[in-house]
């Protein structure tokens, strides 16, 4: 494993829903499509210095969009919902939002 943790965790996924899930110690990220749960767990722990209980992932298929007759597709991506352990500190970055 020589991947940089910042290559795995691409950016936080900030929506109304994800903000609401902070209450349950669940934090949502856009991650590298090839990353697995273990890699994500290690990356989050390394970047934010928190303890991760579990990681749920899902592949999100990009929406089909068309401009006139030209049809295109938004890229597929992977979403990861990271649940922190009860005794872990919260992710500071999210708290500042």
């Amino acid at each position, binding site marked *: 494993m020589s991947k940089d943790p910042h290559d795995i965790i691409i950016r936080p996924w900030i929506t109304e829903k994800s903000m609401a899930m902070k209450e349950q110690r669940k934090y949502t990220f856009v991650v590298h499509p090839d990353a697995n749960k273990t890699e994500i767990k290690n990356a989050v722990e390394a970047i934010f210095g928190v303890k991760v209980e579990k990681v749920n992932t899902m592949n999100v298929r990009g929406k089909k969009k068309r401009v006139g007759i030209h049809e295109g597709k938004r890229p597929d991506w992977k979403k990861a919902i990271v649940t922190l352990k009860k005794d872990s500190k919260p992710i500071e970055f999210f708290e500042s*939002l």
Partner: protein
Amino acid sequence: MKVNVEKIENNVATLKIEVEAGEFEKAIEQSYRKNVKRFNIPGFRRGKAPRSLIERYYGPEVFYEDAAEIVLSEAYKKVVEENSLEPVDHPHFDIDKIGKDIGIVATAKVTVKPEVKLGQYKGLEVEKMVYNVTEEDVEKELKDLQEKNARLVSVERPAQKGDVVVVDLEGFANGEPLKDAKVQNYPLELGSKILVEDLEEKIIGMKPGETKEVAVTYPAEHPNKDLAGKEVLFKVSLKEVKEKELPQLDDEFAKDVSEFETLEELKQDIKNRLEERAKSLSESSLRGAILKKVVEQAEVDIPQVMVDREIERLIMDFAFQLRLRGLDLKQYLEISKLSPEEFKGRFQERAYNNVKTSLVLEALAKAENIEVTEEEVDEELAKYAEAAHKSLAEYKKNLKEEDLEHIKDHILTRKIFDFLISQAKVNEKVVENFSQGEGEGEEEQA
């Protein structure tokens, strides 16, 4: 929150307002709640975005303007109350410093009510016009009444001045029939000057059934520009001559036109009414005269905003009057060929006087501690209620706050005048013949 009145100069008060960070923060929160719905942030429904995110998206200043307005207007209200300032205009804020951590430092400038330096208002010498109602006045009034009740009787004789004739008219200019100049069975009172005088003149002497062509020269100053100064040929056919028959002045007449039984009673009533009118006229002219003197003697430095406001109010009034006559202000300006500035300028003096008068009256009330009590208002209201056939409580219920305020004002003004008159030296000037004096004092009414 710290607010100080720094100085008052030329009726402009300068206020220094300082708001601490904590208080400002509260205002920002308030403004956030008010405005969330306006911000659109991807991932959030409108109105659901957290404040911190909006601030990151749009910069922390987005709420400043609104929040500043909230705190400043609050501070402003406070300082106005504490220092019992009387602003006549909206305040003008200048923000010197603003920030989340430092709060706000701002200066506010507002025009306040000017102080009135009252001149002499006790022992003023004023003339009071007293109008005597004479026998002649009564006769004149009676004659008017007679005239109004005259009957028209057809007669077979040439038309005379004062007769009402029924005519068909058709006008021609240069051989062409004129537009709008053809009428049939038109009742025309000779001598009323409704039509061109020349034409009326020429109808006099015509017999019923007679048809005549008359050439009439329109006077040069005739309102119809197309016809002014021109010669117009009128085909006139006289159909009927009616004479005005005045009713006999007797008890019968009195019964017909009034609820009185005899002519004597009617005369007495006319006299009473005239006397009443004369009295109120002399009263209002006295008030006008006193007011003019008091206002003249007082010194006030009136801020232009107050005058401007009054001008606006006067113009609104004027526009309203115009609309009753089916015109709007724009049309009026076009017709009278006035530029908006000229038009405004016309009101300047009147507005100035109005403002000054009301300021002086206010100052007078203050100086002499003239106030209106609840009982006095009730008393006045009872009068109105009686006129409207309602009980006092019922009448009161239907009144709006501003109506009450208005009535109060009315009473106050009356009391001030009573006071002024009681203090003044009134010289009576007797004017014989009421009807001749009429109309003189009216424009002075406050």
